């Protein structure tokens, strides 16, 4: 049993949290350098504004409709993201932070104590009370189906923001209504190819031959189809990675209390996150770190710390990411806490074309791309984990060295 909980129009909702005058008004958030719209709230969507549209193209329209326009503020968003995750975790022990505004929850044993629907409503009410954010919740057998239920919870307001479906017939009804692009892991290219096969709804996809799917699209789509049929293929921490941010987070096997241990863990996550950024050919500008104690711990104080560093130039260089992550960690670190979980998030991701800013004096590191390519190549062929971590460690000392010079 899985649950997907996500915040409606996260960036806009964060901007509205301390602004009662924005209640019910259209709000949009611009990307880095104010180039395009990255977030649009419900009222703005109703006026026809969409994500991804360049700002200059809709500027006069935004002014005409009196839309509140904000530049993106990733410090604020990760502040709320950490609180959102902490509230969910206090009610559900096993969670996986999927992106800045989405969490998967393992809801396996919920039904022993309460109905899934009641659990969803409780979670939603608590998040709203603590953080002012409104969320949508989907609960069902598999993660892919949970994503679809979540889509339904957002699309039809009569659901009250919570859709819990375990009944096969009702699930089929939902799949029949959901276009195939709403299925988790189906991108626009896959959608087009599927259309040529006459597959346009989730239900049709679920009836596709799995061997054919595997041959045409690979094993991930085959798993997606199995998941739509109610067969669990993705565990809590698996599945297609999120697009808008890069997240790496883990719960610790044993509680961490020493800063040096935490630095090691966070350096590891930062390295992994930078690798992911290079794989996806993305450059990050905001690096956030969060650390927290377990809500289930009875001994010791509870703590939920987070900090965000904004890089002067977008980067995918492990050294930049590690350095920023360590600075953020030091800012959020508090002594005497038994830490149960930590994570790093790269946000404000952009493509290569925006990497260089004419007016920014600090240019990206020279030779960074080559060094990172070499690093990735060694890691791919690396025989042992120790070799990898040695290289990560060296990368970190290189950072220190360049700071000292």
């Amino acid at each position, binding site marked *: 049993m899985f649950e997907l909980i996500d915040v409606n129009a996260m960036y806009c909702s964060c901007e509205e*949290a*301390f602004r*009662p*005058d924005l*209640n019910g008004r259209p709000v949009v958030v611009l990307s880095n350098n104010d180039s395009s719209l990255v977030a649009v709230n419900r009222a703005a969507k109703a006026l026809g504004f969409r994500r991804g549209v360049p700002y200059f193209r809709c500027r006069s329209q935004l002014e005409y409709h009196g839309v509140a326009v904000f530049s993106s503020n990733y*410090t*604020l968003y990760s*502040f709320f993201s950490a*609180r959102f995750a*902490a*509230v969910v975790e*206090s009610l559900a022990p096993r969670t996986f932070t999927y992106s800045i505004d989405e969490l998967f929850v393992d809801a396996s044993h919920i039904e022993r104590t309460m109905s899934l629907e009641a659990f969803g409503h409780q979670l939603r009410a608590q998040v709203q*009370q*603590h*953080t*002012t954010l409104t969320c949508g919740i989907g609960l069902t057998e598999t993660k892919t189906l949970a994503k679809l239920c979540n889509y339904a919870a957002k699309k039809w307001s009569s659901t009250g923001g919570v859709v819990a479906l375990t009944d096969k017939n009702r699930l089929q009804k939902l799949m029949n209504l959901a276009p195939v692009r709403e299925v988790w892991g189906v991108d626009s290219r896959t959608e087009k190819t599927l259309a040529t096969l006459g597959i346009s709804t989730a239900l049709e996809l679920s009836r596709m031959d799995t061997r054919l799917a595997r041959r045409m699209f690979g094993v991930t789509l085959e798993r997606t189809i199995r998941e739509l049929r109610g067969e669990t293929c993705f565990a809590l921490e698996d599945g297609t990675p999120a697009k808008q941010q890069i997240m790496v987070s883990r719960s610790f096997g044993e509680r961490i209390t020493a800063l040096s241990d935490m630095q090691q863990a966070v350096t590891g996550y930062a390295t992994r996150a930078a690798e992911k950024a290079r794989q996806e050919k993305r450059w990050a500008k905001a690096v956030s770190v969060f650390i927290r104690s377990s809500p289930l711990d009875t001994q010791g*104080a*509870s*703590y*939920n*710390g*987070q*900090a*965000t560093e904004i890089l002067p130039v977008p980067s995918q260089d492990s050294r930049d990411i590690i350095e920023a992550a360590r600075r*953020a960690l030091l*800012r*959020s*670190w*508090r*002594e005497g806490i038994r830490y149960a979980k930590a994570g790093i998030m790269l946000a404000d991701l952009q493509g290569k074309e925006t990497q260089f800013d004419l007016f920014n004096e600090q240019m990206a590191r020279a030779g960074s791309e080559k060094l990172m390519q070499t690093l990735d190549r060694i890691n791919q062929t690396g025989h042992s984990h120790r070799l990898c971590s040695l290289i990560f460690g060296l990368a970190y000392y290189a950072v220190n060295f360049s700071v000292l010079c």
Partner: protein
Amino acid sequence: MLLHPLKPRGSQPGVSEPYFAEMISAGFPSPAAGYESSELNLHEYCVRHPSATYFLKVSGNSMQDARIHDGDILVVDRAATPRHGSIVVASIDNEFTVKQLQLRPVPCLMPLNPAYPPILCDPDALQIWGVVTYTVMSHGACLS
């Protein structure tokens, strides 16, 4: 009375100060100083629900009798239940305001300053944003 949210940032590492358990009488300090019973961490002392607590800065003087002054910082807990007599942050006419909540005889928001009139409000339209649990006030101004 206007309120400004304090720019959220990663909570600074908490500093624990020696905590003297005896009450300090306002006046001449007792020569028999209090004993250290534990370490006081101010953040832990003021924040009961970490995920639901926000810090807001006050401007205006409509709550001076509740010892809330211009420039003070309010600790606001969204998870606490507002009751009759609670100091609350509410939104009226699209603006945050801090007032005392009174439920009897009729629901109203009461400024604690005789110069301001009480605000009668429609209980359905009244939106309580959070309950003020502590006020952080600097006495630095008294010295100058």
